[in-house]
């Protein structure tokens, strides 16, 4: 078995709102092996970005364990947390909002180095900044430019360079390409794949775009309303989805051919509110296969063998949908 870099156990993040507790992340379990990419997919508001932020402790978890390299990072004190930040970084969704408009490119990329006092001499630091810019494919002449002078792709490269500055082992990619043009998306995705090979990085790749996730992930976790409903490797997810939600989700991927007709599973109704959700399966209201037990008992994420995990009471009895 491969070495696990990160393991998340029963992670919960609840926000208190005026209407009640909002269960953004509600008992999430997953692990990421060293050097692989775990894709985290789900629709808007299902808690995938929150999961990414809680894993980095940008938000404090309500409950659960986050085991990074064998240690629970939720128990870390401030000093240890600072050290942890060097190992775990994040690339944000919006390259326009994630860069301080009043700092130059070099100041932005150097910030992690300054904050963590990595270099004592300015010359060394400038050298490192230039090296990072080269790594992510930014021309050196842009070093004193401001973010507003650059396009989305270049800005996202700055975000990546900043995340790389401390030589982390693990990077959360929070929808890093969803704000970019399709042509630039490919460039950025390829850049990140190259970086992964070069530095042995491990990614948690958060996205709502199935085609992007398919392109980059080794394993995929599907989230629905704060819970992971299915977690498996890339090929078995797309060829043999077991959870009814995953089946519906995959049936929505358009196939660019007219001679293939497939059954499109249309989900009825809306996503229920994550505020004070009822007991039972979260997907109950919209599931085609629902039965009484689903209403009363929350299904656990069960090991189906071959590193495949599904949270459904009837995983073995559902007929696999044709995709």
């Amino acid at each position, binding site marked *: 078995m491969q070495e696990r870099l990160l393991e998340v156990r029963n992670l919960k993040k609840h926000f208190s709102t005026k209407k009640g507790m909002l269960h953004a992340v509600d008992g999430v379990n997953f692990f990421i092996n060293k050097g692989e990419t775990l894709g985290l997919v789900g629709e808007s508001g299902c808690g995938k970005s929150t999961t990414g932020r809680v894993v980095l402790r940008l938000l404090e978890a309500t409950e659960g364990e986050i085991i990074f390299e064998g240690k629970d990072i939720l128990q870390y004190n401030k000093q240890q947390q600072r050290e942890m*930040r060097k190992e775990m970084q994040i690339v944000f969704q919006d390259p326009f909002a*994630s860069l*301080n408009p009043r700092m130059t490119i070099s100041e932005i990329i150097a*910030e*992690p180095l300054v904050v*963590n006092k990595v270099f004592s001499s300015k010359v060394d630091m400038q050298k490192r900044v230039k090296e990072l810019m080269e790594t992510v494919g930014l021309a*050196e002449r*842009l*070093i004193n430019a401001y973010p507003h002078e650059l396009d989305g792709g270049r800005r996202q490269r700055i975000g990546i360079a*900043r995340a790389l500055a401390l030589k982390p082992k693990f990077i959360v990619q929070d929808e890093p390409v969803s704000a970019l043009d399709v042509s630039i998306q490919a460039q950025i995705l390829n850049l990140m794949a190259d970086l992964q090979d070069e530095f042995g990085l491990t990614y948690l790749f958060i996205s709502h775009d199935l085609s992007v996730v398919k392109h980059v992930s080794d394993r995929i976790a599907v989230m629905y309303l704060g819970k992971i409903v299915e977690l498996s490797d890339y090929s078995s997810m797309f060829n043999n989805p077991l959870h009814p939600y995953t089946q519906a989700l995959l049936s929505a991927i358009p196939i660019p051919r007219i001679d293939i007709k497939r059954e499109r599973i249309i989900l009825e109704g809306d996503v229920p509110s994550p505020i004070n959700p009822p007991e039972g399966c979260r997907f109950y209201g919209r599931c085609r296969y629902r039965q009484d037990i689903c209403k009363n008992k929350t299904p656990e994420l069960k090991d189906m063998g071959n590193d495949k995990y599904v949270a459904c009471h009837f995983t073995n009895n559902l007929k696999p949908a044709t995709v």
Partner: protein
Amino acid sequence: MSNAKTLQKQTLEKTSQPAKKKRSPWVTVWMSLKKNKSAMFGLIIILILIFCALTADFIAPYGFDDQDLMARFQTPNSKHWFGTDNFGRDILSRVIYGSRISLQVGFIAVGISMFTGGALGAIAGYYGGKMDNVIMRFMDILLAIPGILLAISIVAALGPGLQNVMIAVGIGSIPSYARIVRASVLSIRDQEFIEAAKAVGANDFRIITKHIIPNSMAPIIVQATLGVAGAILSAAGLSFIGLGIQPPTPEWGAMLSTGRQFLRDHWHIATFPGLAIMITIFALNLLGDGLRDALDPRLKS
């Protein structure tokens, strides 16, 4: 062949531009401020005023308290360019000496309120919750008291004098700075670049000073330039009721209020100190607008 080579070389040279020269941020601000003509005009006026204040002893034609009772209420003439007041004092000299007091009051009072108000507002906005509530409710208490009344009570408690006037006027306008800074901090606090700074391990002090304050400068600068005017007028108000600068020290506001009683027959007594206040405020506003634009890299061409 060789033609093609030189052509290639030329295009290569064209595309590989050198990196923009690294300049210190203040130099960059200065460069773009220099391009702004109205801001430079404002800056020149301010510099002239400061020069007047510093060299008043040499450039003023008369002493500020030299009375000449034979020459009372003279309209502007070649001997007294701005005329004389009810004690026969030269108004030009008094305006020049007055710039010392008025500029001091304006800048220092605004400095006091900008720094305390700004810091309180930044803390309230950034931390939110209880801290926010405590600070802002305290600001509300200050706001509930009319500014001039607050200033009067503070000066009455501390005793009249230049220093106390500055403190009183400064405290009175703390809440407006706190509110402005808090509002702009709130709008910036939840942006992703703040989260990015947290993710690399920056502490709160760095986040507030490096990321939040520079991005919330614009409204503060505008408020401060307007505030200098307000501070000069408030100080004038205090002088008017005898709690501020004590006569015979010349102060523009006080001169204005003395001139008021003779306004019907002798227009020049109130006009010149009034013009001085107006020009100062005008220059500060021009400079403030220019500074706000110069500090924003997005507006640079």
